[in-house]
């Protein structure tokens, strides 16, 4: 029972990340009609926003280490610590949450310039060409990151206050020994919150209404004299921010490295297809569903019956869904079927 | 009455609540040109799609030369001898004009699948001759090496027709063969279709243009709201008050 609860949490947690990435991907596909293979790179860039924040906050200088008295010893000390002492230390400790302040404007900028600079020239070209050019872009982005930050994963820990685990067993009146990392709980809440915010934005604002209408029937909305193109640029920016945030907040869970984007890209496409091309609800549902499935498949009890199932479950589900129900869980009929 | 080639019996088709086709009964005689006319939304295209296997009727039968056609794949219907010429040109835009016609000629000869990766295309003079012949008949002989996708719309329609004719179908279904053509091109197409008629090919024509219909048809069926309201020779249809009322709103033909 406890093991199952943990697996559910694990699954929802992973699912939260999948849902966020897939949400951005499907938003772009549904509105702009572009198959964006650089979407994984946006997730990776988001994670590196956390890295950059951490690096900026820990810009240091060499200071004489007073604790060593036998000889002159120097150690790297961040300016923040020099200026503000313990308060500075706390700020550094909180670099991942603080990175949100950097992630939002930076990812918006990246998203907007990507759309204006490249993507918009590919609206009218074939899906194959869209895939190819964004695949090229993904390679370029990941190689730039490698060139700047190196090839090794960079640890970006969560604030130490919440570095431990939450005694969820005690919360729920179950076994006291049942604990779960705080940061993962926060990530789950964060993803639910972000997904809700995006949906609320699309449902409640006029801007969102136009976007939804555009997803349904782009040509008609264009004929209504609404400047669809500018709105779509903004949609791309929003998608980049959502995906980037998902990446930044994921940094403490998975230390960012330059090729994490490619790994998540395949997954996010699978999620989108399972959910149904162009369906936002489908993308979110499929994200959580696949997260749960993957986490259950990695339980030892399951693996002993079906060895290796944890490695392939997601792809297996995707294959079955595409073959049996090509419009996915919630997709509309006819999207991309020809 | 001559030999019946295509026999449609009690065909019904609904889309949602809409009754697109109701109790259609239609027999097409061998060697005749049978026109189906009717106002927009009368169900003409639906009927054609049922014949060609793109749509499956809710009930009823479609028999071509005694064989059931319902549920067959499009390529099986093609090989049975029923060929459709599309209303919007469905050509191979990336190939040249000659190749566009060689493909259906190959289909006629090879069947649904043949792996001939090691014979040379240039060695298939027979196929090329057939294609050239049809293209010259249609006045496209001068542009056989042109890129099909960049032809004018009228030329694409003629190419489309050539792709149907090269297969020497037992029954040719023409979906508005002259829509969007100039008067000159229309007359040319009429002449051409007359020429095929002399060779004895059975045809079904769906057409808006009464000039075309009355120049070509041996028999006419009038569809309105998914039902056949009149059938007969052009003269009978011309004089039928029911047709004038339903289809032409009382105007003189």
């Amino acid at each position, binding site marked *: 029972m406890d093991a199952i609860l943990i697996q559910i949490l694990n699954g929802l947690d992973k699912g939260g990340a999948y849902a966020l990435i897939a949400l951005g991907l499907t938003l772009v596909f549904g509105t702009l009609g572009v198959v964006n293979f650089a979407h994984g790179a946006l997730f990776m860039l988001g994670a590196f926003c956390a890295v950059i924040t951490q690096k900026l906050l820990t810009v240091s200088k060499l200071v004489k280490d007073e604790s060593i008295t036998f000889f002159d010893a120097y150690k790297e000390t961040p300016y923040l610590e020099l200026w503000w002492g313990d308060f500075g230390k706390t700020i550094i400790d909180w670099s991942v949450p603080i990175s949100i302040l950097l992630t939002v404007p930076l990812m918006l900028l990246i998203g907007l310039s990507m759309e204006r600079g490249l993507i918009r020239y590919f609206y009218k070209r074939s899906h194959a060409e869209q895939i*190819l050019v964004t695949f090229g872009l993904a390679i*370029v982005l990941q190689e730039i990151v490698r060139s700047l930050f190196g090839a090794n994963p960079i640890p970006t820990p969560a604030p130490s206050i919440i570095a431990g685990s939450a005694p969820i067993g005690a919360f729920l009146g179950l076994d006291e020994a049942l604990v779960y990392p705080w940061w993962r709980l926060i990530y789950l809440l964060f993803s639910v919150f972000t997904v809700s915010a995006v949906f609320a934005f699309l449902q409640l604002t006029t801007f969102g209404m136009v976007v939804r209408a555009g997803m349904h029937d782009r040509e008609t909305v264009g004929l209504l004299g609404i400047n669809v193109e500018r709105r779509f640029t903004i949609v791309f920016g929003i998608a980049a921010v959502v995906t980037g945030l998902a990446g930044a907040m994921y940094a403490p869970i998975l230390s960012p490295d330059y090729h994490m984007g490619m790994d998540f890209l*395949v997954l996010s496409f699978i999620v989108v297809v399972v959910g149904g091309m162009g369906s936002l609800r489908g993308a979110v549902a499929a994200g959580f569903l696949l997260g749960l499935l993957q986490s259950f498949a990695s339980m030892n009890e399951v693996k002993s019956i079906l060895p290796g199932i944890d490695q*392939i479950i997601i792809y297996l589900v*995707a294959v079955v869904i595409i073959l049996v129900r090509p419009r996915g869980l919630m997709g509309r009929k006819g999207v991309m079927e020809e | 009455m001559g030999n019946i080639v295509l026999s449609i019996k009690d065909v019904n088709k609904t889309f949602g609540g809409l009754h697109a086709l109701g109790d259609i009964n239609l027999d097409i005689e061998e060697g005749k040109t049978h026109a189906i006319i009717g106002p927009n939304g009368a169900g003409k295209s639906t009927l054609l799609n049922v014949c060609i296997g793109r749509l499956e009727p809710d009930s009823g039968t479609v028999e071509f030369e005694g064989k059931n056609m319902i549920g067959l794949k499009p390529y099986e219907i093609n090989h049975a001898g029923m060929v459709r010429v599309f209303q919007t040109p469905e050509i*191979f835009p990336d190939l040249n004009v000659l190749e566009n016609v060689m493909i259906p000629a*190959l*289909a006629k000869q090879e069947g649904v699948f043949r792996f001939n990766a090691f014979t040379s295309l240039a060695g298939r003079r027979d196929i090329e001759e057939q294609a050239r012949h049809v293209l010259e008949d249609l006045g496209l002989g001068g542009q056989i090496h042109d890129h099909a996708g960049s032809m004018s719309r009228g030329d694409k329609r003629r190419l489309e027709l050539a792709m149907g004719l090269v297969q020497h179908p037992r029954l040719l279904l023409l979906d508005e063969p002259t829509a969007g053509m100039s008067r000159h091109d229309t007359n040319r197409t009429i002449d051409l279709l007359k020429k095929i008629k002399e060779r004895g090919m059975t045809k079904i024509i769906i057409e808006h243009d009464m000039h075309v219909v009355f120049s070509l048809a041996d028999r006419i069926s009038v569809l309105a709201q998914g039902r056949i309201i009149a059938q007969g020779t052009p003269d009978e249809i011309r004089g039928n008050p029911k047709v004038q009322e339903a289809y032409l709103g009382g105007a003189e033909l």
Partner: protein
Amino acid sequence: MSKRSLLKNDWVVMALFTVAVLSMPIWLAPIGAAYPDLLQKFAIFGIFAIGYNILFGLTGYLSFGHAVFLGVGSYTAVWSFKLLTMNVLPAVLFAMVVGGLFAVVIGYLSLRRSGIYFSILTLAFAQMSYNMAYSVLTPITNGETGLQLTKTDPRMIDAMFVAPGEGLPSTNLFGMSMSGYSGFYFCAVLLIIGFFISLRIFRSPFGLKLLAIKSNQNRMLYTGFNTKPYLLTAFVISGVYAGLAGALMAVTDPLAGAERMQWTASGEVVLMTILGGVGTLIGPLLGVGIIKYFENIFSALNTNTLHQTFSFLPDWLEDIVVAISSHFVGDGWHLTLGVLFMVIVIFLPGGVMEGFQRIAALARRLSRPQQEKAIQTSEQE
């Protein structure tokens, strides 16, 4: 005109191609690309790309899973070395058969869908194979270490004829060692055969029908062709080519690892095909040549060599140029590749071959006004 009709003759083309490939060690020497290792790569990836082009170039189906067949080919070949004999012929044949069988299964399922769904299905199969090669299939693939030859391998056929010697045996073709130039010539002969088959396919009714499917698949159905078996045949042919290429990798270096199957490896063959010119006969080979050659050059460069190269510039400019360009060489080669690839897709979707055609067209346009002028002046006279 006569030049063009000559090129329409298959045998003339093949003769030219054969001479060009076999003399590569000579004419590639001036640009420093004539050593066996690189030549082998040209030939092996050439085979891979030619095969991939039969699928992608003729039918337009964009597969992201062809590295699976490459990997499977390598594993099969190494197992043939381990179990049967170090002779490369059985290894190559088995690899083609197994690659083809995998292609039948994956192709049959993936081709039930088209467009991006097809791409994602092939991607999913590729990832499944890759993940399984690393986990449950470790007994067959030897997991992360990769499958290698060992001294204790049975090598049943070899054991019947010769006693096992000291150390690891090397691959051979009836006694001829498959390392160095002989390895290249073995790959080159297979490349020539592979190119010949591809040429015949391109110029056959079958090839025309594949192109027609790419152009308008729906129309093909109404024209009387069942397109599924055509697509599957093309898919399997390209799978066999990939299996062969995988086997040759093992022939020249008897080792097989799962990273060969990763989807980014499939992306590489897409890159090569596009770069050279998808759907053209020779384009994919040009793509392979360009990518493998520059990979070789660029990866070897470092900051020191860059400083030497740009030493003619003023010092301050030299530092800037080196600082920027150093990101594009060595490990940064992939960055160059990504940029190159984007430029090609954006400006030259037809690849290098389209570039050639444009230049030829431009040359014709430039020479024509002169001719016209000449005619005009003669008329005036």
